[in-house]
């Protein structure tokens, strides 16, 4: 049974409409909305050669790692807090604080004892604090030095580390939790947050995902041979969704956090609205048919897309842009065909399509968060960024060629579909539409 954001069509019922009123992003090609927007517009890649991966003899020696974070983190976080934060928590915290400020919400220092009971957070991760485990806990315990580990290991390695850290920094008093659904985590978080607001259980929810940088996080993917290994000398060409010459995805890291809010609350306080969350759907393909732990069941994907449209109460012809999952593996052509089939359109008439992973890599648990930020920036600021590195389009995508955006263009599109498909054969699809009156 597919989980819809609404279980029945809304007809002016007492369900809240949900909008996005703030965003924060820590991406491999930019920190902050303006820098990230510029990077997307200019096709600036965040993929770099990573020396450590070469030393460790990884097949893939390139990746997406946010730059300059060590230098700026002290502007956001005090020394005593930083002592207990690993990379995923740091990315998540910076993005969440940026998001809070972008939403124009008041900041109360902890000493004031103010709790915002109406705002919560669903910020997920795919792998979590594995850097802390690998760098500190495992060596310490193995050497019989558990006593010397210090007091901060638990809060960094518990799966909910990223959301718990955000909750404490911002004084959140509604549900604060970490979801985890592999590559669909960030998008799933957004839909779950919208559900909560729709049901009247929260006024605002931060939602998104974060993933840290650590060879321990990326090692498993390298071992599976699903990473891009032929472009170690040319990092910016390594992430090649939809191309004929792709050889796997490029791992990434960072965080994307969005502020979801009831339309009523947003209007009441005159908040800037990026777009409305018109609808969404989350499901799984059951790992049946051609689906498996690591490959999607096409029927599940198509059902998810259709369910999102149904929940949004729109027809497929109303979707103007699709920001795909599109990782740079051999699954890309299948994904595009799934979109076409789900929308019941022809290759020449599907919505314009792009893939943000071509510029930032696959940030795993953070991917949905970072890419939803990208999607909303494009809607709000009127452009569609070029999906780079697919000049040599995969032969199966030839007929779709005119719909795949390879050079950034201005756009007046109002309605965009964003989906993420994850290991575990899990799917999440959300529909955004700009709001005319603010």
């Amino acid at each position, binding site marked *: 049974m597919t989980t819809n954001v609404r279980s029945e069509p809304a007809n002016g019922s007492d369900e809240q409409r949900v909008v996005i009123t703030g965003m924060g992003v820590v991406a491999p090609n930019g920190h902050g909305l303006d820098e990230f927007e510029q990077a997307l517009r200019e096709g600036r890649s965040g993929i770099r050669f990573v020396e450590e991966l070469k030393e460790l003899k990884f097949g893939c020696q390139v990746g997406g790692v946010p730059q300059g974070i060590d230098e700026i983190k002290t502007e956001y976080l005090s020394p*005593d807090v930083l002592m207990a934060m690993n990379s995923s928590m740091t990315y998540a915290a910076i993005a969440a604080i940026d998001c809070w400020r972008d939403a124009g919400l008041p900041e109360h220092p902890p000493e004031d004892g103010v709790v915002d009971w109406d705002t919560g957070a669903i910020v997920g991760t795919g792998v979590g604090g594995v850097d802390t485990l690998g760098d500190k806990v495992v060596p310490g315990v193995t050497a019989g030095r558990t006593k010397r580990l210090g007091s901060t290991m638990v809060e960094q390695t518990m799966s909910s580390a990223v959301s718990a850290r955000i909750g404490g920094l911002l004084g959140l008093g509604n549900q604060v939790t970490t979801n985890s659904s592999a590559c669909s985590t960030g998008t799933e978080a957004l839909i779950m947050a919208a559900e909560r607001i729709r049901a009247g259980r929260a006024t605002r929810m931060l939602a998104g995902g974060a993933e840290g940088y650590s060879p321990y996080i990326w090692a498993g993917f390298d071992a599976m041979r699903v990473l891009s290994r032929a472009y170690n000398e040319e990092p910016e060409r390594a992430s090649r969704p939809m191309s004929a010459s792709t050889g796997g995805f490029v791992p990434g890291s960072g965080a994307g956090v969005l502020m979801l809010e009831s339309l009523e609350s947003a209007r009441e306080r005159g908040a800037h609205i990026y777009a409305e969350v018109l609808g969404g759907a989350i499901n799984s393909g059951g790992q049946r048919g051609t689906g498996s732990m690591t490959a999607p069941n096409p029927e599940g994907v198509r059902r998810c897309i259709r369910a999102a449209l149904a929940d949004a109460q729109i027809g497929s012809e109303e979707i103007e842009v699709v920001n795909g999952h599109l990782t740079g593996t051999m699954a890309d052509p299948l994904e595009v065909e799934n979109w076409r089939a789900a929308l019941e359109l022809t290759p020449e008439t599907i919505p314009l399509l792009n893939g943000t992973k071509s510029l930032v890599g696959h940030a795993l648990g953070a991917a949905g968060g970072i890419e939803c930020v990208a999607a909303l920036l494009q809607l709000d600021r009127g452009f569609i960024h070029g999906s780079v590195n697919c000049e040599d389009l995969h032969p199966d995508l030839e007929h779709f060629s005119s719909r795949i955006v390879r050079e950034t263009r201005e756009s007046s599109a109002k309605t965009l579909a964003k989906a993420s498909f994850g290991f575990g054969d899990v799917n999440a699809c959300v529909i955004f539409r700009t709001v005319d009156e603010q």
Partner: protein
Amino acid sequence: MTRKEVFDEVLNIIGPFAVNKEALEGATEQTNILTDLKVNSARLVDIILDFEDKFEIEIDDDAADEIQTLGDAVDKILEIKG
């Protein structure tokens, strides 16, 4: 080491953990680590580890429990160091 040297080093180590910076500025041997400096009690473990590293001593759990004020810390460190 003199009492003053130990006190200064103790203050140095506890400093980053102290939430009440005002109390930190005017700290004396009577200053209580938890109630005056408002150090997060979960971090006492880390402070003890830092003492052990800095002064090259071992502080067992019972001894650690006896440390309430900055003066207690100085006493304990000098006592263990001998």
